[in-house]
């Protein structure tokens, strides 16, 4: 047990503290543009968070004491629970944030409001970390908004750039509708069960009667009213809708292509990797804990894994097929990010009505998110690098880039092929782990969708590779500087992506255990 218990949220606290330090620095010297210091604070905060998350993860927090761990840290009367699952996702968040902030040092060097930029990133990251630990629909909603609100601003950060503003607007509007749907869904669940804490909701569903929480313990509600399954089901579907927004999954994916395309590239990386992961961790925890499928299946509420199957397939197809015919690289990556949301949704879709296979599929989804955190971030950071150099947006503009920037392009190749599921990075394993998960429960439609989309994705990812290495440069292009921060971030992401092949075992071990312990 971590003592005091609240210290278990150290990864989130580190983010929050760093954000406050940045705001402080900004108020002390509002005109400072010392990118190195500001960025340094942000990177340091992220690294502290990462260190804390990894330390706690391997310190056995969340593992029952009987198994050599220290048990989960239950905070605020069970509103937050720091366990292996939470720490796993805090690690993802912290890693991505570290990479993004590191890369941003060069990217926003010339911009005003740098301190705000970093603090917004860190605040959003704080939200993500908290979301990982949220154990109640209430804290989930608050953390959810804490993730969203700064990110709206970040997307529209380039105030003079019409693309950025338009992206921010669309992101915001869709986000606002989604959070309203989410909130309404939560209210329906509350209406049906009387509780918001995940374990309490689960008890209500299992017992079929409304519950209430008194002094942190779940009790039967005095009236003994039964849970209206129709309202519960409607609530669950609306919650799925709200989550789908965060995941950038169908039918709430519409913001994603524009937001990722218009946003500053490091922010696209941040949103498409970390924010997506945050959406998934909530989904994993909520659906694994609060809405036990074995109790829900056939109860008249909703067999949510079927919903996720539909969404997974639709998301895969829309993301990948649209990505296949894009003209610009960044938008292609944006769509591919939707496609990957579809892959990860398999984690919630590939199970049987009795819940069999959930540990398998969910850990596969988690592993994929972890790998994705590096490879996708890396890919978007490469876009940031290209934007930094003033290389155009289209595929053709990348022609022959491999000759001028071989290291970065090699890293990009690693990212892309790893995204495509080739054994040059951990994406290979995570994709096949997901594939295995579909086969494990004989979800043939999911497996088939994965096969088709995977093939298509190989096609469009290799378009970039082809442009970089195979095509001859078309126009004049001079690259004057090689920004250290961006390069470091990209290379680090690439190295980790590659190392995740031999090291994939660590991830799956942790992920599998984390799901089992929920």
């Amino acid at each position, binding site marked *: 047990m971590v003592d005091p218990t609240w210290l278990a949220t150290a990864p989130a606290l580190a983010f929050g503290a760093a954000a406050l330090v940045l705001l402080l620095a900004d108020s002390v010297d509002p005109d400072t543009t010392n990118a190195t210091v500001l960025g340094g604070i942000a990177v340091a905060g992220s690294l502290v968070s990462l260190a804390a998350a990894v330390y706690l993860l391997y310190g056995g927090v969340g593992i029952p004491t009987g198994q050599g761990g220290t048990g989960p840290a239950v905070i605020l009367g069970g509103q937050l629970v720091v366990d292996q699952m939470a720490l796993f996702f805090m690690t993802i968040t912290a890693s991505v944030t570290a990479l993004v902030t590191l890369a941003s040092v060069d990217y926003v060097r010339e911009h005003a409001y740098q301190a705000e930029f970093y603090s917004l990133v860190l605040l959003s990251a704080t939200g993500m970390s908290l979301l990982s630990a949220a154990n109640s629909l209430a804290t989930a909603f608050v953390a959810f908004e804490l993730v969203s609100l700064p990110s709206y601003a970040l997307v529209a950060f380039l105030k003079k750039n019409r693309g950025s503003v338009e992206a921010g*607007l*669309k992101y915001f*509007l*869709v986000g606002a*509708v*989604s959070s309203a*749907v989410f909130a309404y869904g939560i209210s329906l669940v509350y209406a049906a069960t009387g509780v918001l804490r995940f374990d309490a909701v689960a008890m209500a569903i299992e017992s079929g009667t409304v519950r209430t929480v008194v002094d942190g313990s779940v009790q039967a509600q005095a009236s003994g009213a039964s849970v209206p*399954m*129709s309202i519960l*089901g*409607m609530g669950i*579907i*609306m919650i*799925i*809708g709200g989550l789908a927004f965060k995941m950038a999954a*169908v*039918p*709430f994916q*519409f*913001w994603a*292509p*524009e937001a990722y395309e218009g946003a500053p590239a490091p922010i696209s990386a941040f949103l498409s990797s970390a924010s997506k992961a945050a959406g998934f961790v909530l989904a994993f925890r909520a659906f694994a804990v609060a809405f036990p499928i074995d109790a829900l299946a056939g109860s*008249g*509420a*909703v*067999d949510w894994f*079927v*919903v996720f199957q*539909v969404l997974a397939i639709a998301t895969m*197809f*829309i993301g*990948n*097929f*649209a*990505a*296949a*015919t*894009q003209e610009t690289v960044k938008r292609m990556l944006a*769509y591919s990010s939707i496609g990957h949301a579809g892959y990860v949704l398999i984690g919630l879709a590939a199970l049987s009505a009795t819940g069999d296979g959930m540990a398998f599929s969910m850990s596969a989804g988690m592993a994929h998110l972890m790998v994705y955190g590096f490879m996708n971030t890396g890919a978007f950071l490469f876009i940031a690098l290209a934007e930094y150099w003033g290389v155009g947006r289209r595929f053709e503009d990348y022609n022959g880039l491999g000759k001028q920037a071989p290291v970065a392009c090699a890293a990009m190749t690693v990212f892309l092929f790893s995204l495509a599921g080739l054994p040059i990075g951990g994406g290979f394993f995570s994709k096949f782990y997901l594939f295995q998960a579909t086969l494990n429960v004989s979800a043939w439609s999911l497996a088939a969708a994965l096969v088709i989309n995977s093939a*298509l994705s190989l*096609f469009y990812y290799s378009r970039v590779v082809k442009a970089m290495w195979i095509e001859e440069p078309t126009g004049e292009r001079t690259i004057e500087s090689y920004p250290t921060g961006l390069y470091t971030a990209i290379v680090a992401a690439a190295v980790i992506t590659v190392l995740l092949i031999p090291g994939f075992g660590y991830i799956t071990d942790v992920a599998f255990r984390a799901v089992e312990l929920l």
Partner: protein
Amino acid sequence: MAAFTYAPAIVLLPFVSFLVALFLGDRMPKGGALAGIAATGLSLALSIWVTLDVAGFVGSSTSYNEFIYTWVAGVDAVSLRFGLLFDPLSALMLLIVTLIAFLVHIFSLGYMNDEGETGLPRYYAGLGLFTASMLGFVVANNLLMAFIFFELVGLCSFLLIGFWFREDGPPSAAKKAFLVTRFGDYFFLIGVVGIIATFGTGLFAPITEGGEVVAHSFPGLAEDAVVDGATENIAMLETVGMGAKQWFTVLGLLVLGGVIGKSAQFPLHTWLPDAMEGPTPVSALIHAATMVAAGVYLVARMYGFYAISPTALAVIALVGGFTALFAATMGLVKQELKQVLAYSTISQYGYMMLALGSGGYVAAVFHLTTHAVFKALLFLGAGSVIIAMHHNENMWDMGGLKDRMPVTYYTFLSGSLALAGIVPFAGFWSKDEVLYEALIHGLGSKGGLGPVYLLAYTMGLVSVFVTAFYTFRMVYLTFHGKPRTDIARDPHGVGWNVKGPLSVLGVLAATIGLINMAPVAKVTGLHIDFLHKWLNGPEEGGWPATLDTGLHHYEELLHDVAGVSAGEPLGAIGTLLASAVLSLALAIAGVLVARSLYGGAEPVEHTDKLGGVKTILMHNYYQDEYQVWLATGLTHPVARAMDKFDQGVVDGVVNGVSSVSLSGGRRMRRIQSGVVSNYATLLTLGLVLLLVAFGLAGGWF
């Protein structure tokens, strides 16, 4: 035993000469010829030694049948091994091959070296490799090894036909030769595989150790199965659902495919005339005396297998008889010296097949021997003429060469008389025996076999006349009359290296028939049918008992199993004499007709009198045309159509999937209209759809 111990050297020596000529020929005098001459000479000597051994003059054993190399040991499977089989048949063949090869090597000095050809190392390497392969084939003790060397001689044939690769004709002819024989070999290969699968062995003769059989031969097993019904060691019968006899017939006919291809029998004879594009010594060695004989030799080698199948025998006899006549008629109208000889070769191999098919084992081997000698002689003679004529082969440009090149003329004449079958030259004796055997078995055999034999006999008989005619048409046009061109008036001289081999062969052509004067033997009662005895072996024990390859055994099989028996309506001697007189008369008639038509000082063409027949004959009955059509008119368009299908349909589906996906992608991105209100609408719609669908499923309403 000593000779047999060194026997592998017979094969290896020419192989070494191949390597020497190939890699060192450039740096050697005569382009590697000497290595070849030395190797074949030594092989000849060794062959003679082996023959003496087989004959029992030296050594302790008269036969040899051992494995010498394990190609594949086989784990839980058949072993595939190489071994040597020496018995009178292979010894005889060894002698023929090494002798002709030796003479041809010498002749090549005159034909190739003295004519200043380039690429001599390649030439001698080819000859060396051919000789090695051919000898390997001859000594093979099992079918697989025979097939292997059978193919290798095909390769050498290809290489040597295409020796003058810079011209258009030879490479094309080489291709055709290989392809047509390959078509036959396809069936042969099925046969080999089938026989090994059926019997578990490809041995021609059983291997014994201390009197005990340690490895059975497939003819022996087949005989047991057919005669005694011992099918327990025979596989495949259930698989193919046939009785032993039918299945063996099928296998025999399959092997016959290779024979027909290699020995240029109808309908796979078309390659041989084209093969004359090769250098003439090559034609003499490969396409007259040895390689073409491989097919016939193979049938003789596994005669025990054919002797139990009357159907196979009938097919062999018919193919032989028909080819003999068919090819001979085509030879009638040819204008080029080597073309006449080529068709003559096809025709003569037809005789051998006829003999084998009609139970004349000795006759076939006899004719094989004499033919090897006189046809090699004729080709070398033709080569000499060609040297003299500066490589002009058209007989109508020759004439009167007999006075200018007497050695060539007299040896050529000796060969021609042999070919035409004029007593006492070699061809008379052997051809007469072929026809005699066919006749008596035709008269005596029961069932369908008799008429078939008689039909084949008739065709063989007619072609005696045709053969004599075209042979002497060739002789008259080439050597007699007045020179018709300037070159013919002043031909190029030839050296000792041409005349020497010619002389040797010329003498042999006149005399080799003496080894088996069966009619004389029968009439006089003298035991001078040496070849008969050679192939029959001792009556008791000896190699026939060990190897089961003796004549006596074959005759028993033919009589008891296949139902081949002799009928002699005019009594033994009467029938014999009638047959001999008849064929001799026809031969002489042929010679006389040729003389009357072409014997003058200035002969003219008479072929026009044949009218439409001439066209058909000149076009070789359109055999080439239809075969070329099969290749280029049928197969190639089909291949092109398949290519279109592949590109259009099979690959089209692949590309179609890709374009369908991409156009689907293009449609899908249209959802993203850019207007945020539309997004709101769509996501609402999506949500409502989910709610309605799962609401209905969950029964909320």
